[in-house]
């Protein structure tokens, strides 16, 4: 019962480990970034879920409502999302340039290229 009632945490943990696993296990630079994004998403959930009160409304003062959700996690996560988007964009931009330089986005192929030609072009 208590295990099931914390399902949001279970989802968080699942996303977290899945994301991290992808980052570590995949050699493809884009797939790594996808893993990273999933990993970051788990954090959004970690913050947002506890801030929600069942039956609560948006924290805008009005006569009819007495119960409000905590707005602070939303604000924080809005910032975190922006940061995440920026990271993802930057990561993809770097990947594009890696692809242009090396002709590949597979990590082992890139490392092999560097081993064969240490000084690079």
């Amino acid at each position, binding site marked *: 019962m208590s295990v099931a009632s914390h399902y949001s945490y279970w989802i968080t943990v699942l996303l977290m480990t899945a994301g991290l696993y992808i*980052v570590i296990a995949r050699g493809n630079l884009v797939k790594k970034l996808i893993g*990273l994004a999933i990993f970051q998403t788990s*954090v959004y959930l970690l*913050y947002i879920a506890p801030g929600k009160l069942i039956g609560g409304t948006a924290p805008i003062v009005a006569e009819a409502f007495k119960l409000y959700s905590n707005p602070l996690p939303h604000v924080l996560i809005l910032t975190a999302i922006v940061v995440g988007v920026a*990271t993802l964009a*930057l990561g993809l931009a*770097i990947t594009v340039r890696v692809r242009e*330089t*090396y002709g590949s986005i597979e990590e082992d192929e890139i490392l092999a290229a*560097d081993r064969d030609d240490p000084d690079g072009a």
Partner: protein
Amino acid sequence: MILEHLPALQVTVPLAAAPLIVLVRQSTVAWGVATAVSWFAFAAALLLATQVAGGGPVSYALGSWPPPWGIEYRVDALSAFVLVLVSGVAAVVAPFAWRSVAAELPRDRVYLFYALYCLCLAGLLGMTITGDAFNLFVFMEISSLASYVLIALGRHRRALLAAYQYLILGTIGATFYVIGVGLLYLMTGTLNLADMAARLPALAGTRPVLAALAFITVGVSLKLALFPLHLWLPNAYAYAPSAVTAFLAATATKVSVYILLRFYFGVFGARLVVGELPMPEILLALSILAIVTASLVALWQADLKRLLAYSSVAQIGYITLGVGMASRDGLTAAVVHLFNHGITKGALFLLVGGIALRAGRAGFERLQGLGQVMPLTSLGIVLAGLSLIGVPGTAGFISKWYLVLGAIEAERWWLAALVVATSLIAVAYVWRFVEAAYLAPPGAATPQPGEAPRAMLVPAWLLVAACIWFGLDTSFTVRGARSAALLLLGGAP
């Protein structure tokens, strides 16, 4: 009026400089703005440090929302000390960048460099000054994102992959940190560090708090490149543009150490971290591994820049060793080494930047006979290298003194022996440079055009002089570090 708003200006002025530079897009103006802003930040940090030394911690409420509701900027003995280091190094690197960046980057990207430089500086200063755990995360990401791009600007194609790896590991580190903060927020309902510290003792030992400690430790350790989480560092330092390497090596990891110190002793409290958990033992073990393995790896590098990068991993080990001692002298050693290693590595990487300008790269085959071709650069590297070893009369000696003193006072003689014995490895790798530069005739690969331009030598030598000066006169460094250590251990401010 300006004085009371210094904490805000310290961060926002560099932050405002970045978009200004993007709007102007002109490289000379960009350089001028970046330099002016760095020196402004340095002056502000010095003023703040004197304020703190005179009248205790300075608190600044952003938007006039009093803490813990609003974001608080808080300058105490420790953060003032780190602010001086970060802004000081920035103030020296900015003039250096003028020639170095012009040579290493395509013309149309130069303004971008300076914009990112200001952004990175603002992020690092913000991390140091803020008293809010989430605001810290935001500044951490500002500085990290800027530094990923700065590293990717490197000439060598490997810079791209280095930046990518740093991006992945840095983001994982920052996310771990923010998970830890989230758990703390769930438990305490506050994000203000001081407020958190006041509420945590009641919750000490609960599982979310322990998990938070673990997440924050791993996250920050990734950022500060604690062995074995250092894998991103050597490539990032080796392939970034010279000015970037110097700046990041001297500041970025140091600020991360600051965060570790802040959370361990300022938030979780020494009683939990040192008294109940085996964190000191873990840190000591990892630091020793870092010092020994990274020093040995450094010894076998074929490129001076990579050698210095690995040496950074080892030197960070010395810092965390001091943290792991968790005593007054140990923490003094950690804080003072944070500063001393910052200026030493800054000086070394700036000088290597001069070599990179003339020789393209700093492979040892290009350093043959460098003592004749670039006498001032070589002499500077030797002097800063002595500081790296910890020869008396240099800044590095002071750090080693306190490390050994801390070990002896704890009656850990083996640790004292280890610290001094490992500096012999530093002797060996510094001496590789000396023998190449002074005992070999100039070879075919040695750069011919001669000494680095004055615009690069003067800033580098400023830091070299600082290495010597802070080895002879420690009234600023050791006093600052001592009061920071006392503050962390909960003594007098």
